[in-house]
């Protein structure tokens, strides 16, 4: 049964055909669209001209030129990468103790503690953003308490809503489980005898951590970082709802090109750059992970 060719195709062809049509083809068409003109009423103009019985291609490089004309888009990308890096680091700082605590607790509690990390993750993405809109709202308790305290020291009132801080808190909140789960999976496999041996040899708590646990957990950190970095990089909903005008990320501009300005070719250019960045990050991460496992 294993050797029969028809069986192999029976299994692999249907999903392959589906993904070729609905994933590979759209991605290719988007790449192609970066060389086309925008349609008069949005969308795309035809990619060929019909003149005097002859077909000629009607393609252009001007969408790519527009990307490079100003440094607006470069800065936007750098800013988005900045948000993604910061979020990843914050997730690491918050997620590491949690993952370590779960991995080092008794077998009985472990499943429950892990479930408690996943549970909020199962509530809707928008609900989780909405929760922070309530917390940061100008009328909310947090803002009023903060401003009350600031008034005592004579500082002016602040608004939390529509600020980069609000955005970052929410970005971390939404993506934290992506860091905790792979980290836990890594930390749980560590051989605790190593730590005991180091202790017997006189290594202190922090030394044991830095010389044993931390280096062993690097592949877990890499996996978690990729899982946090990629979705944050393409995020548009959180800046949209919590970021205000200063919090715009590359995702917002892509959304704007496709839904509001309806300049699809330029939207496609920005999307392609995002795709390439994401692919580069994944490849880099998996190479780092492999090298660590090899040596």
């Amino acid at each position, binding site marked *: 049964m294993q050797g029969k060719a028809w069986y192999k195709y029976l299994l692999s062809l249907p*999903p*392959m055909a589906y993904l070729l049509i609905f994933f590979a083809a759209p991605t290719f068409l988007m790449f192609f669209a970066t060389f086309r003109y925008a349609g008069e009423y949005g969308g795309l103009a035809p990619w060929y001209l019909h003149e005097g019985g002859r077909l000629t291609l009607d393609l252009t490089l001007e969408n790519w030129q527009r990307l490079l004309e100003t440094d607006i888009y470069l800065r936007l990308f750098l800013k988005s990468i900045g948000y993604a890096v910061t979020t990843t680091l914050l997730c690491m700082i918050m997620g590491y103790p949690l993952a370590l*605590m779960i991995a080092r607790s008794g077998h009985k509690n472990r499943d429950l503690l892990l479930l408690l990390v996943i549970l909020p993750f199962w509530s809707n993405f928008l609900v989780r953003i909405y929760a*922070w809109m309530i917390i940061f709202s100008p009328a909310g308790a947090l803002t009023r308490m903060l401003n009350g305290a600031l008034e005592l020291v004579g500082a002016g009132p602040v608004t939390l809503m529509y600020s980069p801080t609000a955005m970052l808190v929410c970005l971390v909140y939404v993506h934290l489980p992506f860091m905790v789960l792979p980290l836990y999976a890594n930390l749980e496999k560590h051989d605790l005898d190593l730590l005991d041996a180091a202790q017997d040899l006189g290594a202190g708590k922090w030394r044991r951590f830095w010389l044993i646990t931390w280096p062993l957990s690097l592949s877990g950190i890499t996996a978690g970082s990729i899982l946090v970095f990629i979705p944050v990089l393409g995020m548009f909903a959180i800046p949209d709802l919590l970021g205000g005008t200063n919090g715009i990320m590359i995702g917002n501009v892509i959304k704007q090109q496709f839904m509001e300005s309806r300049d699809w070719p330029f939207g496609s250019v920005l999307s392609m750059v995002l795709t390439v960045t994401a692919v580069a990050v994944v490849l880099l991460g998996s190479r780092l992970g492999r090298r660590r496992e090899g040596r």
Partner: protein
Amino acid sequence: MQKKNVLLWVSAGLVYLFLYLPLVIVVVFSFNDSRLNAEWVGFTWKWYGKLFHNREMLGAAMNSLIIATVSTGTATILGTLAGMAMNQYRLRLLPLLVLSPIAMPDILMGVSLLLFFIMVNMTLGLLSIMLAHITFCIGFVALAVQARMSSMDPALVEAARDLGASPWRCFREITLPLLLPGILAGALMAFTLSIDDFVITFFTAGVGSSTLPLQIYSMVKIAVTPEVNAVSTLLMLLTLVVITGASRLYPAIFRGE
């Protein structure tokens, strides 16, 4: 083992607080008798009452349920095939096609599918949303099935074949029952992903059709109202019921992970 590290427990405890406090606030204010989500005024059910008279919301909920059911069914079949193929053969293209959608930011799949559907002259609506949801669900089912299958003993199938069972009978009586926990885990994942998806639906929905997350988005865009708290609370309750129901009916789904 070592003694408990107090610092570790305290910091982990704070992270749990960070994870749950916002959701608790959403739930608590859904019962608050005030338009503002700011101060506790008194207990009320009225936001839930309003919700059940909101035709748009009910329609969106219905759409979400239809889309999730159809997408889960289709993605489970395609994903199971893909997972089995990836486990049994050394393939190159299929794993790439299965894994790439998982590794890409959602927005890219959203805009490229929008482009694709418009280029093939498809009217955006329930069907385009379903086709999109199937695309991103296949990978998760395939991974769950592949993981399950790699822990399966291939000798079982070989033995059955030696004893004269047809390939179909072999599949029905040996492979399928053994893979079932993986398939169900994948299906559960697909269902929750589909019900929850906002980004890809946002781009592929068109003007006429709305889903629950889209409805929440448009409400939240306009104003923060307790009605959103009520629908959020119900949505959390639904997911909780589905997950605990599944774990009761079929505990093996969760043991595999």
